[in-house]
């Protein structure tokens, strides 16, 4: 009887949180989910992680994912939906290899399913091999995203190129937002002095009808910070979060093993006329103009595929997407055979650049 009462309360909390999230009231949604037993309630666990993601609470999200993973037992009886979700979240939160092994072990017995879990299991197992065998060669390198989209953040996290600590410390303003190159250079050049000036920012509507803050000239859009939560109080929650991310950038952008990555969506990876301005702007933070910069593009004619070294410090590569309608941020697409091959190729080119810079450790 007690269990039944508890069940009714929990169901109500998740449904209520769902409604509140839809209306952009993330704080109230979080309060609804507070106290839910995440180790027993799959829906509450998934909603909590999703909500923390929407609130950009990356450290709290990482902790919840870790807590759920640690509680898993081999051949878990938790739902296929949660297991598929956890496999992806464990990678996205840069949990250690052993943790991801634990989710894979919990999933054994479910992996032959024709549904999403089977797809995710096989994709994560492929990436796990890379994490075990290849990623350690790049340990210690800091991959600092300069935008222009979330590829340098999400793909590198998914393939184990940042560790658990780096997932928190290297989360910067360019990691999860869209920028144009002049906006990146301006932000670096004036040390973010005008980056969050309220008079330069307005509210647009996302594809999904959610309010979304952006620079009025369209050069910066905080597309991962959607909803009333972020635009309320004259953008106060957004600016507070950006201040933390700017601080992260300043703290992590110096050192011998730093690689800055810029991802462009079009075919212009090889257009590099802005590099002198970018090097000068970066020098304000790093103290020199010999910063290692990697430019990537996702469209290319056959002859332009692969890596080109512009000079001693700058490399570019074009890694074409599998098809024109390929959506890299669709997780099922990323885990499909075509998506895996696309991202594996991205990692091959990345390693070629690291090798050229002498940053890779020798294999034992």
């Amino acid at each position, binding site marked *: 009887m007690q269990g039944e009462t508890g069940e009714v309360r929990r169901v109500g909390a998740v449904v209520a949180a769902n409604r509140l999230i839809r209306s952009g009231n993330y704080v109230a949604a979080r309060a609804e989910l507070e106290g839910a037993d995440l180790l027993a309630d799959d829906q509450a666990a998934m909603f909590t992680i999703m909500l923390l993601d929407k609130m950009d609470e990356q450290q709290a999200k990482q902790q919840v994912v870790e807590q759920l993973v640690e509680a898993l037992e081999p051949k878990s009886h938790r*739902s296929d939906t949660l297991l598929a*979700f956890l496999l992806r979240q464990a990678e996205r939160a840069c949990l250690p290899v052993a943790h991801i092994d634990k989710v894979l072990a919990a999933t054994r017995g479910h992996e032959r399913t024709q549904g999403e*879990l089977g797809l995710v299991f096989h994709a994560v197992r492929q990436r796990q091999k890379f994490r075990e065998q290849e990623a350690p060669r790049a340990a210690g390198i800091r991959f600092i995203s300069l935008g222009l989209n979330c590829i340098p953040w999400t793909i590198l996290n998914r393939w184990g190129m940042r560790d658990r600590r780096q997932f928190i410390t290297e989360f910067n303003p360019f990691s999860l937002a869209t920028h144009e190159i002049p906006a990146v250079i301006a932000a670096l050049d004036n040390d973010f002095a005008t980056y969050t000036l309220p008079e330069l920012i307005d509210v647009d509507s996302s594809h999904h009808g959610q309010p979304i803050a952006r620079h009025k000239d369209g050069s910066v859009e905080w597309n991962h910070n959607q909803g009333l939560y972020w635009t309320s109080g004259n953008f106060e929650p957004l600016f507070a979060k950006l201040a933390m991310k700017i601080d992260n950038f300043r703290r992590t952008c110096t050192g011998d093993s730093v690689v800055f990555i810029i991802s462009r969506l079009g075919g212009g990876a090889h257009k590099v006329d802005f590099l002198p301005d970018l090097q000068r702007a970066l020098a304000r933070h790093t103290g020199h103009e010999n910063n290692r910069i990697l430019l990537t593009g996702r469209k290319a004619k056959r002859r332009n595929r692969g890596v080109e070294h512009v000079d001693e410090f700058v490399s570019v590569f074009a890694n074409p997407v599998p098809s024109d309608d390929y*959506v890299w941020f669709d997780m099922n697409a990323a885990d499909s055979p075509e998506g895996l091959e696309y991202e594996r190729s991205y990692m091959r080119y990345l390693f070629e650049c690291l090798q050229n810079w002498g940053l890779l450790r020798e294999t034992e």
Partner: protein
Amino acid sequence: MSIPAGQEAIYADLTEVFNEVFMRDDMHLTPELTARDVQGWDSFKQIEIIVSVEDRFNIKLNTQEIDGLKNVGDLASVIVKKAK
């Protein structure tokens, strides 16, 4: 496969749920529609659909029922069964 007789109202409600979850206004639900057919229908969207369905139809699905859902037709059948 067409919508089974007597389930038209459920499909109408489900269409609203799917439009809300995927933030679209053009979802066309058929019994054989699966996650593979809809971009972005991943495990999280799946649970958003389930929670929204529970809210809309005032029912509760258990883990076995959720894991057993292969397509929209299965979801409609569970709703019919639970709503009785």
